[in-house]
């Protein structure tokens, strides 16, 4: 469904609601909140891993939207614009809290010359088919914050490395390497939970 065709509860299109909200119409703003609250909240929740923080940040993101909506010119889709705004609100908050910096020094840990750990490649051990949403959700929650943010932005929200690098103030290479580490860490966590499940079945 295209944005122009989204009809809100009060019978106006999203496009009309945006125009009205830009002129200060509170009811249209409320309709926009209703349309976008779930995705914004979910983004905040996944990036912080904390319900109370996610609620505060959702609130802050929509307040910023209220303050800035008049500057929306339609160069990108409204949802894209709003999401970028929400990501910035979350990142700002995490920075204030002392977000673990994505270090430029950090590189992938070198592997031993004799190759990777041999226990990682047995066929019964591959993850395919073993992950459900709840499993993955839990594993993402338990990632260290720096990894979680990159993973959520890239693999869940679909941002490109150049966009993430710009938002996080790091290099594209660094964004790539952090994402890789996040996926490797997730792999460990998911394998662990798979092994625990198998042990419980015995």
């Amino acid at each position, binding site marked *: 469904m295209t944005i122009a065709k989204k009809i809100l509860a009060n019978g106006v299109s999203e496009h009309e609601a945006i125009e009205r909200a830009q002129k200060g119409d*509170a009811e249209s703003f409320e309709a926009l909140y209703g349309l976008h609250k779930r995705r914004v909240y979910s983004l905040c929740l996944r990036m912080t891993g904390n319900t109370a923080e996610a609620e505060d940040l959702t609130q802050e993101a929509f307040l910023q939207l209220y303050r800035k909506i008049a500057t929306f010119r339609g160069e990108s889709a409204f949802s894209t614009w709003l999401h970028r705004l929400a990501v910035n609100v979350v990142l700002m908050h995490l920075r204030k809290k002392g977000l673990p910096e994505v270090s430029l020094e950090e590189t992938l840990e070198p592997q031993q010359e004799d190759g990777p750990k041999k226990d990682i490649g047995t066929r019964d051990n591959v993850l395919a088919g073993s992950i459900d949403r709840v499993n993955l959700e839990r594993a993402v929650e338990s990632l260290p914050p720096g990894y979680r943010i990159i993973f959520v932005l890239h693999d869940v929200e679909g941002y490109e490395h150049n966009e993430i690098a710009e938002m996080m103030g790091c290099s594209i290479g660094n964004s790539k390497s952090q994402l890789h580490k996040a996926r490797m860490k997730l792999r460990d966590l998911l394998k662990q939970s798979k092994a625990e499940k198998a042990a419980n079945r015995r």
Partner: protein
Amino acid sequence: MTCAEFQKALPDIIDGGGTEDQQKHLEECKVCADLVADLRYIAEAAKLLVPMEDPSPRVWNNIEREVEREGLAKPARRNV
């Protein structure tokens, strides 16, 4: 190509596909092939994480209160 060399280039291989040499190693090495399969699977599974939960109604109540306090707009007439 050794496993170590291959794994050093993993980020590019996962998202880009990799060079001819890397592809050859992938076909020959089960350990690295499983690793790549897992990482691709994780990236794909991330799409399962669609937004599921709505924020508590207090979030909107707080927004409404703050909008009124800052005089950003006339107060909304009904709740979401």
